[in-house]
């Protein structure tokens, strides 16, 4: 499971996948952006999440995660992440534990349009939505 893309320039939108690649019963694919290993998935609300590939607990590979409960669940200890990378559940930790609130996987902004999925390579939120027409040649290719 790996798909390597060329080193992106900072502060740019880059194509990471086609929408068709996620059109499968389990909509999840690994993505490598520069030296960052990521996982792209679609949650039950139809929204995309592009988050770090390794579980922040002990580093298990979330590409084999369970796509359930509107997010991605690590098969190692059941830690559950939403599309923003926020941990929302740690089912092996004691009842009432609040630890999960401080746990977050890195998240990369994504946008979907024109049959493409783009990721933003800058720090923070992108200043403007991408111009999908600039990437449209890629769809045919």
């Amino acid at each position, binding site marked *: 499971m790996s798909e390597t893309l060329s080193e992106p320039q900072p502060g740019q939108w880059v194509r990471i996948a086609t929408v068709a690649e996620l059109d499968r019963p389990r909509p999840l694919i690994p993505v490598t952006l520069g030296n960052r290993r990521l996982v792209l998935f679609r949650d039950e609300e139809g929204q995309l999440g592009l988050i770090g590939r*390794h579980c922040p607990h002990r*580093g298990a590979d979330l590409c084999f995660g369970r796509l359930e409960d509107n997010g991605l669940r690590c098969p190692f200890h059941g830690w559950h992440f939403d599309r923003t990378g926020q941990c929302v559940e740690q089912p*092996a930790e004691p009842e009432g534990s609040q630890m999960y609130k401080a746990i977050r996987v890195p998240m990369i902004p994504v946008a979907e349009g024109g049959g493409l999925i783009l990721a933003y390579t800058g720090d923070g939120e992108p200043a403007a939505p991408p111009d999908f027409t600039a990437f449209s040649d890629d769809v045919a290719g």
Partner: protein
Amino acid sequence: MISKELNEQITHIGPGTDAGAVLRRYWQPAALSDELDGRTRVPVNLLGERLVLMRDDTGVLVLATRQAREDEPAVSYPDEDDIVVVPDGPVYPVSERKGMIFAWLGPGAPPEFPNFDCFRAPDSHVFAFKGLWECNWLQALEIGIDPAHASFLHRFLQDEDPDDSYGKQFRDKAADLDMPMTRVLREYPRPDIAVEETDFGLKITALRHLNGGLTHVRVTNQIFPEAICIPMSREMTITQWHVPVDDETCYWYSLFTSFDKPVDKPLMRAQRLKEHRLPDYAPLKNRDNDYCYDPDEQARVTYTGMGLDINVHDQWAVEGMGAIQDRTQEHLGRSDVAIIRYRRMLRQAIAALHDNREDALPMRGSGDPTAIVGPLSNDAIAETADWAAASTRTDLARRAACPWDATV
């Protein structure tokens, strides 16, 4: 999270490293006796060293250093005719026990073996096997001292008939309860975990409080420095070493020990050879074929989608962390209490060797190693108030009924 420097200190094992120095103060599994069948020279890749195991003319085992190219792969298994002994290279003591050949790569005279059950039981009651994992030894060990993961990683969405469970982990009924272990693990995922230091390492107790005032008690052990002893079924325990080949590759070596009938070795071996190739004991499901991951199976049958063999689940978990887990990015929780305690013991051992206090290491002091017996390793179900006594009682009952001397 720990620093990059500390992560390297506790994971790197070649000659001259801190963790490597600790491991070299203990007998290390080097090969299975089976590997010598039909061969006179068996390559051994151990602790970053390139060795060869041979029988001399008198039948005595010798572990010597062999020539190897700089770029030889981590797990290299050259034909015996191509193995060349380094004439003046290190030669290490070996001891064959229960189908495994142990090597002493440390300084000084090797110590006696502790009297663990796997060494006390007769050969008929112990089965040895091994398997290759492509990752550092420490993450391989740490999954074995993490009682919580079994409720998730090894979750079966349906229960199998325990009568079909021979030789498999977690398929038995929990002792004294007509409930398959798979269901106990699935329905009670938040164990209370207690850790005690012992003369051999750590005793790890996981309590799962069931309905009706009952508690499931599972006792597992860390045997310093890189082994575990865990229950497999009511009949058998597993004593398993996580032995470094180099910093990024390791073998698990297991002794399956029966407290009841002689082990059906042909069956145990056939079950495992179906999942491994020879001669290097590499698993057939691996990173290159995505562990035969099946999303449909993951949705319906298993938590991982990687089949029913729990060894594959563990292998995926530890190999997926990367060659050496980047512990600068980890976030340990309450369920990791035994891992935290173990790392403290390992750091204490490293510090003791820096101070030339080898006798401060577990089982390396002035006490007689052969006086160390056990360890208690079992599952029990008890009235919640009685769980501690019930765990001991269940262990003693099994030992009393055991056909070989398992008394403690």
